[in-house]
């Protein structure tokens, strides 16, 4: 009996040992689960952010770059033998701020790093760099932010900000994570994928409290980040700077395009702001202030503001009428001020002179001829058919729809078609007389400054345009295939020649005389746009030289009164700057700079 009991005890001991070994065999050798869980415990992927691509102008001048800013970090546990007085002196802190920051850091974590001083600029960092080793527990963490050597093109570049939940949800490939910085507007948004580069990852080993102990498998699985691609834009820095200077104190836009390629040479939105304000630490403070301003500096006027084009639209009317053969070049009308108000000039006159002197009543007849052609016995039906035809022409040269510039948020403007008026007045309740304000580019017609400049390019090219764009090269690759962006218009070449002649005469002896520049052939047309809410807007489109044009330009200055004054002067100065590279008429420059049309 006793012998058996001792055996039972021994057997029990062996049984327990065997169970343990079997269990250990299962969790250690047969099951992968625990090994994976252990790896998950200690391995933390640390994202390495790539260097964001920089942006150059057409001549390779740097427009947007990256600059480091420094955050002083602290690990409270490692702070030892600290000479608080010397520390505060070095970092320009008062003792109370120091104590407050340290308490805050300790409250967050005793062993993990937290930010002690945010946004130390490069100069201050350089002055304290050497002495940092005297303060154990403190170290510096570098971030890069955008920097703009010149405070230009703020709205064109746009800004970078933290990704929002919608963008995160839209990211189907799972590139982004919460807290990532992405381009929110402008070129930063449009070329985000090229600029951002490829993120890298480093696998760190950290302990249960999250303190990093080293790299996992000596970094064998780490992936280095690939820097983003640089952009070479079509912007001419000198022209852009000059344009922004001329527009100081004014509301409005300048768009300058190289007609032969569609490259945007300058894109001025005024008022503007220093893009450096929206880079770095104080983003929300500055952004809030800019948003509050009544003149809307964040509104990108060249592509978003929609204006009635005014008298420059007479060029369009003339082209359509000529192509439709409802007007001959020799047709003359008297300047009948009962039809429309006008300014003093010779009368009666033919089409070229009507354009040269910008005669309003003349174009009352032109528009009537276009949409009033007797195709139906019903006056309403006639207008409807005429208007549809008219709309077809306008849309074919890029009005009433976005041109497709490589910027987000481009507006289409408004080319009112029959559906538009049906909605407005009711079907069959509008005719030529109802919509007659369209004849001189007023009324429901709305065009963006970019579309105006594009039209100038169309005339310059005698009938075609390239999609306007801002980026020439992404990295080393050309950004836009040249042929794909070319659009031909269905209007005979000779009509363009005629229009260009009229524009040239307008500069040489007509309403656009302020654009006249010695030694350069300039073609221009000004306009004064009636404004119900204040002084009239001034507008001018121009291109130069006549042969082999280098620049097509649109200038729109809000509330500047008579178009010839502010707008034509600015257009002339910019053309001279672009073609000659110097300004020969300082008096005109002064005249423009002094003009302050802020209301």
């Amino acid at each position, binding site marked *: 009996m006793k012998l058996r*009991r001792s055996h039972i005890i021994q057997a029990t001991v062996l049984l327990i040992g065997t169970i*343990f070994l079997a269990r*250990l065999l299962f969790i250690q*050798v047969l099951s992968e689960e625990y090994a994976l869980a*252990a790896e998950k415990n200690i391995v933390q992927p640390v994202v390495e952010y790539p260097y964001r691509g920089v942006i150059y102008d057409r001549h390779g001048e740097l427009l947007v770059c990256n600059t480091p800013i420094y955050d002083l970090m602290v690990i409270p546990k490692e702070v030892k033998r600290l000479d608080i007085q010397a520390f505060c002196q070095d970092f320009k802190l008062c003792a109370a701020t120091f104590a407050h920051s340290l308490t805050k850091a300790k409250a967050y974590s005793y062993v993990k790093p937290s930010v002690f001083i945010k946004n130390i600029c490069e100069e201050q960092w350089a002055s304290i760099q050497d002495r940092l080793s005297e303060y154990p527990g403190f170290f510096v963490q570098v971030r890069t932010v955008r920097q703009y050597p010149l405070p230009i093109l703020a709205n064109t570049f746009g800004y970078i900000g933290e990704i929002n939940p919608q963008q995160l949800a839209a990211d189907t490939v799972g590139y982004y994570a919460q807290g990532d910085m992405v381009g929110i507007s402008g070129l930063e948004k449009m070329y985000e994928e090229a600029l951002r580069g490829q993120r890298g990852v480093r696998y760190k080993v950290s302990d249960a409290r999250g303190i990093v102990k080293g790299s996992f498998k000596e970094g064998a699985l780490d992936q280095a980040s690939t820097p983003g691609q640089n952009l070479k834009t079509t912007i001419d820095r000198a022209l852009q700077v000059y344009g922004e200077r001329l527009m100081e104190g004014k509301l409005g836009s300048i768009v300058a395009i190289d007609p032969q390629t569609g490259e945007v040479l300058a894109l001025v939105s005024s008022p503007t702001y220093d893009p450096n304000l929206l880079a770095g630490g104080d983003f929300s403070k500055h952004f809030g202030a800019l948003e509050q301003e009544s003149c809307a500096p964040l509104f990108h006027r060249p592509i978003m503001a929609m204006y009635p084009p005014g008298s420059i639209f007479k060029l369009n009317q003339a082209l359509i009428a000529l192509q439709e053969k409802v007007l001959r070049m020799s047709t003359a009308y008297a300047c009948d001020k009962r039809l429309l108000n006008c300014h003093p000039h010779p009368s009666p006159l033919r089409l070229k002179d009507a354009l040269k002197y910008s005669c309003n009543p003349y174009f009352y007849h032109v528009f009537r001829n276009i949409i009033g052609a007797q195709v139906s016995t019903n006056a309403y039906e006639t207008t409807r058919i005429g208007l549809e035809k008219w709309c077809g022409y306008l849309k074919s040269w890029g009005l009433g729809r976005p041109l497709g510039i490589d910027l987000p948020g481009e507006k289409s403007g408004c080319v009112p078609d029959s559906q538009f008026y049906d909605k407005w007045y009711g079907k069959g309740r509008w005719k030529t007389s109802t919509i007659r304000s369209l004849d001189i580019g007023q009324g429901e017609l709305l065009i963006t400054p970019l579309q105006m400049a594009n039209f100038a390019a169309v005339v310059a090219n005698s009938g075609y345009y390239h999609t306007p764009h801002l980026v020439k090269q992404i990295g080393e690759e050309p950004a836009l295939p040249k042929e794909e962006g070319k659009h031909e218009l269905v209007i005979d070449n000779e009509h363009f020649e005629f229009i260009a002649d009229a524009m040239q005469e307008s500069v040489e002896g007509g309403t656009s005389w302020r654009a006249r520049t010695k030694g350069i052939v300039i073609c221009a047309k000004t306009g004064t746009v009636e404004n119900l809410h204040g002084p009239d807007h001034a507008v001018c489109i121009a291109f130069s030289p006549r042969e082999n044009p280098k620049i097509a330009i649109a200038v729109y200055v809000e509330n500047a009164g008579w178009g010839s004054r502010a707008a034509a002067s600015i257009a002339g100065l910019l053309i001279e700057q672009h073609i000659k590279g110097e300004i020969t008429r300082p008096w005109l420059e002064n005249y423009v700079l002094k003009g302050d049309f802020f209301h």
Partner: protein
Amino acid sequence: MKTKQNLLAHIDWLLLLLYASLVIFGWCNIYAVGYEKTLDQSLFDFSSSSGKQFTWIVITVLACFVTFFFDIRSYQSLAYVIYIFGILLLLSPLFMGAGTGGHKAWLWLGGQGQPSEFAKLACALAMAKYLDENNMPLARLKPQLVLWTIILVPVAIILLQGDVGSGLVFSAFVIVLYREGLPAWFIVLGLFMVILSVLILLVPHLYLIIGTVSLALVLIGLARKSLKRIILIILLTLSTLALIEGFHLVFEKVLKPHQQNRIKALVDPNIDPLGIGWNVTQSKIAIGSGGLWGKGYLQGTQTKYGFVPEQRTDFIFCTIGEEHGWIGSLLVIVAFLGLILRILYLAERQKLRFARVYGYSVAAVFFFHFMINIGMTIGLMPVIGIPLPFISYGGSSMLSFSLMLSILLKLDSERKEHRSWQQISH
């Protein structure tokens, strides 16, 4: 006075070898727990755990050496005195004032010693002495009462001090009583109670009652119309149901929810996922990640980076599992099995009942610690904080386990003299 050579003449070298290898391995392991690459500490750095443990090993070896100078008869004659001393030691924290965190037992010797460790040794000696002097069958009530008293008095004091783990260790002595003739139904009943309480904690109340009743019905069906058996089954079922109901009532009405959870977490650690559950999960991850050969000495990540709590003491086996893998675990478990079986073998070969009972007590205590400690790290046993003999960090457990072993070695080395001495005395 005997010479030194005589003192070690008949010692069991196999047991001593197993003991020494466990102690040395345990010490290296404690060094591994505290090891940090950057610090480059020495094994003997006295500010580190391994350095302190080394001090305790030296003290232990000296103390064990001293035990060899005593005549074995002195252990027998002093057994009750030692027992009383052990009880007083257990009570000492109560006289010396309140302790910290419920574990008043930690006060002794400036937080280093645990009187409960010494109480096991004292209890073993007292039991051995009683059984040796009263050579009567254990089936009778009187010896059972006396022995249960010897065991339960220290248990009661330890439980009052809040150290449930150390208290439960004394249940290991049931193995000794079984060997000495305790009726087998005691063991069956004990196991039944253990299984029943686990079931009560794991299975919803209603299911358990339905299960019990259906089991009873099946058994009645199998009883082949024997009235005696049927009555017995019905009685057993009724008492089981009464037990379940009573337990349920006490558990639900008397205990507060957080106390209920603490008890439930013993059988199902996931009830307390951030406390006990966390410990068990991380412990299994650490051991499980060791693989067949382990990550290598000093190369553990889970144990070193603080994922496993109570690293040096209760969860020391994690370091072994992680750094030495299944092979290392196998060697440690085989060493423990060898140690326990060798002790059982030595106990069986004693002619003196005192020595045999004492030997079984030592084996039972080691076995219980081994089973609970390793079992809890791999999720097979409830989390009861008791150390792994010779491996866990801690001076008092090292000292008391070693003393238990050295006294056994001394008794065994003189077993031939026992016989002559016993023959003379008879």
